[in-house]
């Protein structure tokens, strides 16, 4: 407890990196996931059931397997590892972890957004257009009506990726001061027998999870009202 309160520098570092990696991944997956969810919820097009099946598979995919796939893609012999380009993250960097977490979070954000959008009366689109909305405006109106569900999608995705161990361990490598985040630090410190630090990290993680889940619960209460 003292470690948390005293603001132990190595602990702070780990917390900051965790938030940076998961925060960035969340931003990316929100920007990609919400439009996908909105389109799937509102438009009927050829191949929609297939995309939805893909999405559901993605939502239930074990994160560690996604970590493995990202690892294989980025490794020296992998398809992306051979390309020398600035925008392709190297293995064992925070960027690789961001990539893995984004891949984990996108289906979640998209899936929950789709569910929220499907929950809005389809007649609303018609009403919006009758009042002069362009197709874009009508879509945006529906998203705004589904806003609580969309926020839940984002918060739930954040809860999932910040608590995730396997994928970040694989692609990040848990390097001290570079790619060590809360979850991987807990694993390491426990193995080393540094239970004080491990517990402090664990409590921080629980604290974060608590804040996140309380937010979700409060929002859900508002939805059902």
């Amino acid at each position: 407890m003292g470690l948390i309160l005293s603001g132990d520098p190595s602990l702070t570092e780990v917390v900051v990196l965790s938030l940076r990696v998961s925060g960035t991944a969340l931003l990316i997956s929100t920007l990609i996931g919400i439009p996908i969810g909105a389109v799937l919820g509102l438009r009927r097009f050829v191949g929609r059931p297939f995309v939805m099946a893909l999405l559901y598979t993605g939502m239930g995919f074990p994160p560690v397997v996604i970590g493995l796939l990202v690892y294989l893609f980025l490794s020296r012999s992998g398809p992306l590892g051979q390309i020398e380009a600035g925008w392709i993250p190297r293995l064992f960097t925070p960027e690789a972890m961001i990539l893995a977490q984004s891949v984990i979070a996108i289906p979640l954000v998209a899936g929950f957004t789709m569910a929220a959008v499907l929950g809005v009366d389809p007649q609303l689109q018609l009403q919006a257009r009758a009042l002069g909305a362009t197709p874009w405006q009508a879509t945006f109106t529906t998203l705004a009506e589904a806003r609580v569900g969309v926020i839940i999608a984002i918060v739930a995705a954040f809860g999932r990726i910040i608590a995730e161990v396997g994928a970040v361990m694989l692609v990040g490598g848990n390097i001290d001061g570079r790619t060590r985040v809360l979850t991987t630090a807990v694993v390491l410190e426990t193995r080393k027998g540094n239970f004080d630090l491990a517990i402090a990290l664990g409590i921080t993680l629980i604290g974060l999870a608590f804040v996140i889940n309380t937010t979700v619960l409060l929002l859900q209460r508002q939805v059902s009202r």
Partner: protein
Amino acid sequence: MNTPLYHLQQVEKVYDGRSVLHIEELSVYAGEILALVGPSGVGKSTLLRLLNFLERPTRGSITFRGRKFDGQEEVPLAERRRATTVFQRPFLLNRSVRANVAYGLRLRGQYDGEQQVADVLQRVGLQDVADQNARTLSGGEAQRVALARAIILQPDVLLLDEPTANLDPYNVNLIENIVRQMNETQQMTIVLVTHNVFQARRLAHRVTLLLNGRVIETAPTETFFNTPHDARTAAFVRGDMVY
């Protein structure tokens, strides 16, 4: 009364292989109140959706303000925005009453309509609930919000789909007065779908009877009720139409 605002020719709407509307010819004149009456399921709401260009006719053409649209091309936004519909059920947004009324203005990029919103709310008698969430309103209040957010747009054409169904006399009277006022003071063209023949009689200049997707008779209100040409109109007016 001699410039048709809308002119429909051989308009047909088919859903899933079933023709639900087939109008050989129908005109709506600028500045009139036209009532559409007929039993349930004859295509009244479908016709309103076509008039608001929310759906395209399967066949035939709709001429609006001299421009002919035959269901192939997209109706320009500016033309579509000249008409608006108050639907059978008011679909209010999960926001304040004020935000609901301002919604159409916002869509048009107009963010400074506070005074207009206040005026319109006053008009429908809802100034006291302006900041209440629209989802918590009573049925009559909700329908008045739906009317308010339509008339604030000052449309050329107001399409009303049973605006007073299931309302109490107070709300019916209030809504009818606003409709009449909009028509008289601003020459707003109004197409009113109603089950209530008395309402058609009170408000409309002309009345059209639809049966099974077809126009049976269109006549000035007086003629329609007193000396209808078609036996089915006479039966409908007497209230002993069998459907």
